[in-house]
């Protein structure tokens, strides 16, 4: 174990399509997190921004962008990019600064104003960029990759389109009780089945939307939390930052092919389970100790995959776990009580931070209607493009 840091404050800007700039959303989320911590902005010693991609300036220097928006006050400033894992990398950077004694109070911010439609690479001719190539050569969108995995689950494990729809129904019901979620209406299985196919077998309501949104945390040492009068702060006990190991044999975004693993080469170690494994090892706990999990449900089928990769059930048994109601509110291990990406949509640099905001509120008992009773430990997990594993364990 490397030591714990305390969550001093958590804040969000509601998700949606608001038509304004990402700086505005991030600044509002930051102010909400500062207010939650009971700290003045001037008391923050370091700002870590999770970058969004805006072809350069200013999205890619998010730490400085937010520091300027809140008012230059001389704090240390850092900006990080790790695609979907950007928020988790920002949290990890803040944690390293706190544990090393470089800073006592760190503001972490992620925010985005996403374009409508498919995510697409920036313009220009870039045949050395795998993300450009998969669009250029194959037209392979993100949902196409989600669909390849969904189809594979159907063939290997007997998952059905109805199972996938159940994930949406569950998460939409949870999101309806979350004032920060973009979609706040229940969804029925019939509505999922009636939505258009985007990439067979996945339909529009199986796939998360792109959204505007922002989330922020104020992190500090456990001593700082006590000094601020927080007797039992939520503590971050692990941040998993693993990369895959060679040969990587799971076809995934944005690759056109997997690594080759001919006979005699090392036994491939699948990437996604290794993300959670690293988090459990660092936190000194296991799936049986969890009260809840926030997982990256870019597609309904992917949520089932995460159940297995988190060790909540054996490989192939994700749909069974769902059907039993174990991952629903009131179940043995509620998954995405926030409503998940199904209810929020995706604001890339904010989402991993938003997941930790949800853990914080759940562990403090402040989640209202969607509260998991007696929550003591939670995990978040996502996977950032280009090999960024991301998982956070928080406890109280």
């Amino acid at each position, binding site marked *: 174990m490397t030591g714990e840091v305390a969550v001093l404050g958590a804040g969000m800007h509601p998700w949606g399509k608001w038509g304004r700039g990402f700086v505005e959303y991030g600044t509002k989320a930051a102010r909400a997190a500062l207010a939650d911590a009971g700290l003045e902005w001037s008391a923050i010693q370091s700002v870590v921004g999770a970058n969004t991609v805006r072809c350069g300036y200013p999205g890619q220097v998010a730490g400085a962008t937010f520091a300027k928006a809140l008012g230059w006050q001389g704090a240390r400033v850092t900006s990080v990019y790790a695609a979907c894992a950007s928020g988790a990398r920002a949290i990890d950077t803040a944690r390293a600064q706190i544990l090393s004694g470089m800073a006592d109070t760190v503001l972490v911010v992620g925010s985005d104003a996403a374009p409508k439609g*498919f*995510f*697409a690479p920036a313009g220009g001719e870039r045949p050395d960029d795998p993300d450009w190539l*998969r669009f*250029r050569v194959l037209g392979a969108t993100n949902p196409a990759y989600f669909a390849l995995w969904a189809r594979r689950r159907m*063939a290997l494990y007997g998952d059905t389109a109805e199972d996938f729809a159940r994930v949406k129904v569950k998460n939409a019901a949870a999101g309806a009780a979350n004032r920060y979620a973009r979609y706040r209406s229940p969804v029925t299985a019939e509505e999922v089945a009636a939505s258009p196919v985007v990439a*067979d077998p996945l339909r529009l309501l199986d796939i998360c*939307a792109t959204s505007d949104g922002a989330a922020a945390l104020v992190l500090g040492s456990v001593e700082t939390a006590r000094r601020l009068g927080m007797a039992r702060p939520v503590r971050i006990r692990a941040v998993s930052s693993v990369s895959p190991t060679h040969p990587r044999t799971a076809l995934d975004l944005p690759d056109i092919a997997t690594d*080759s693993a001919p006979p005699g080469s090392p036994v491939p170690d699948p990437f996604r389970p290794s993300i959670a494994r690293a988090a459990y090892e660092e936190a000194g706990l296991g799936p049986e100790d969890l009260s809840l999990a926030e997982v990256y449900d870019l597609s309904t089928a992917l949520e089932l995959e995460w159940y297995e990769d988190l060790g909540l059930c054996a490989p192939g048994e994700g749909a069974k776990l769902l059907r039993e109601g174990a991952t629903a509110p009131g179940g043995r291990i509620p998954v995405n009580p926030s409503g998940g990406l199904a209810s929020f949509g995706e604001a890339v640099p904010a989402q991993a931070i938003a997941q930790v905001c949800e853990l914080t509120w759940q562990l403090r008992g402040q989640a209202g209607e969607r509260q998991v009773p007696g929550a003591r430990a939670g995990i978040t997990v996502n996977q950032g493009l280009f090999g960024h594993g991301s998982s956070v364990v928080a406890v109280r």
Partner: protein
Amino acid sequence: MSPTRVPVVDGWFTAEGGEFRLLGTCCRDCGTVYFPREDAYCRAPGCAGTELAEVPLSRRGRVWSYTDGRYRPPAPYPSDPERTWHPYTLIAVELTAERMVVLGQGAPGVTVADLAIGMEVEVVPGVLAEEDGRTLTTWHWRPVPGEGPVPGERRASEERPVPGEAS
């Protein structure tokens, strides 16, 4: 005059010698195979190899998974917005010898209804699009004749509205 035929990416496939093949590279030191080709260095963590030889990949493999694209993908995919969008099929194929999965579009007429995981497919030359007066060539996967359902006619597909908000 017929349009010039150019590969969508140089050096990824060839029909030299009469047989169409995907081209990868192979590390001379450790034997690791790469597609898309890696020409500068080997990416195996324990290998410092910098000499990679061009190798043709297996011509046939088995379907690992498949899907289709019901909405027009964004640029840089070459697609004329003035023309009706026809869904393409995307097939991930497992090559036994290389133990590697390679994505590709299905040959014209191959739909998801024609495919099953584990089915044998082969690589064939294909056309990706006409663009700027050129014909962009590519590779396609198609079921091996006589080894499964016969590909049906391309399904008629209406032009679809804005591609939702699928990320």
